[in-house]
């Protein structure tokens, strides 16, 4: 790669990595996976930079890449947990990573488990609405589904969480 291209992209990485990490962390809930998702997002952005049409701000374009990379990783993580036990050398996702508060309350863990336990699409919609603050329309655009479908998933996700968490003192 030419030095100019690499230097230019490095500037982009330095400018955007912290915000990207925050987005990934909100979706994935732990440092390890957030770092993986952010790295994946930057690689995707680099490979597809020629596809950027300029019809939205670069930050908006990259924000969507980070969201999709995070949701993809969450999906792979769920499949791995279902089909295969986590490899023994992989740190348990629920344990605090470097810099995380080791005193995360049990209630917060219960809440996070309830969210992570939602059916995949309901979980994706709920995460994007509740944690990322995207509108129904934006969620539909990001996930490639109709707004009506987003609303149904959101209603079901909230209903499930209400059922699962109503007995806890939140």
């Amino acid at each position, binding site marked *: *790669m*030419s030095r100019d*291209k*690499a230097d230019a*992209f*490095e500037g982009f*990485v*330095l400018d955007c*990595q*912290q915000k990207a*990490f*925050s987005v990934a*962390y*909100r979706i994935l*809930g732990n*440092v390890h996976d*957030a*770092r993986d998702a*952010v*790295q994946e997002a*930057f*690689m995707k952005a*680099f*490979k597809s930079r020629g596809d950027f049409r300029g019809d939205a701000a670069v930050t908006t374009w990259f924000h969507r890449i980070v969201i999709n990379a995070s949701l*993809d990783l969450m*999906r*792979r993580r769920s*499949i791995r947990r279902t089909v*295969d036990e986590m490899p023994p050398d992989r740190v348990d996702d629920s344990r605090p990573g*470097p*810099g*995380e*508060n080791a005193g995360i309350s049990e*209630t*917060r863990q219960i*809440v*996070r488990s309830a*969210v992570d336990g939602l059916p*995949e*699409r309901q979980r994706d919609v709920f995460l994007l*609405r*509740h*944690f990322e603050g995207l509108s*129904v329309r934006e969620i539909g655009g990001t996930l*490639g*589904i*109709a707004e*009506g*479908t987003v*609303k*149904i998933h*959101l*209603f079901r996700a*909230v*209903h499930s*969480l*209400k059922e699962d*968490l*109503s007995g806890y003192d*939140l």
Partner: protein
Amino acid sequence: MICKDIKNLIPLYYYEELEDEEFAAVREHLASCEACGKELESVERVLKGVTVPEAPDFPEEFWSQNAAEIMRRVRKHPVSTPAAGRSMSRFAIPLWAAAAAVILFLFIMRVDTEPEPHAVSEQSGVEMPILNDIDLEDIEITLGIEGIEEKIDNLKGSPSLDDFDSGFARALDTIENSIDGFFMEFELIDPWGIDENGSV
């Protein structure tokens, strides 16, 4: 609006995702219906308890290392076409000659250069077939979902089971969402299904 309809709309009311008229109708109903008011309270209590996780504060060193790791991967990416006007490296002539020699050798030896039909999955370490042919009829797509053919085309020749799993899962997601969306549209109109006259 009846209570059954209001309860379905409470999550959207909480997130302010209703059209103005619907929002006003729900608010008016909630003002006078104790049961629906309690339903809203329970939804609010749960959703306010789902706190948005904030990323920890990391020192500058963490971000430097993170950026360095990202750039290490980026710089490994295949080199793009050299800019016009650059002079050839002093190693280019021997490499060119070596490449020509390899091609000539392969031609003479008639080595089969077709890609191996299998590849080892990075995830499981198991040798898996590369998908070069996917019969859409096997998937029994009956709703004529747009884009599914393109999505599946993108899987052809994928050497990695990770790519296959991720891509195929996304393709199936598309089918499922379309199917769900097809029936969910009916649910939105009538949450309890099509009425006794078969009308929506």
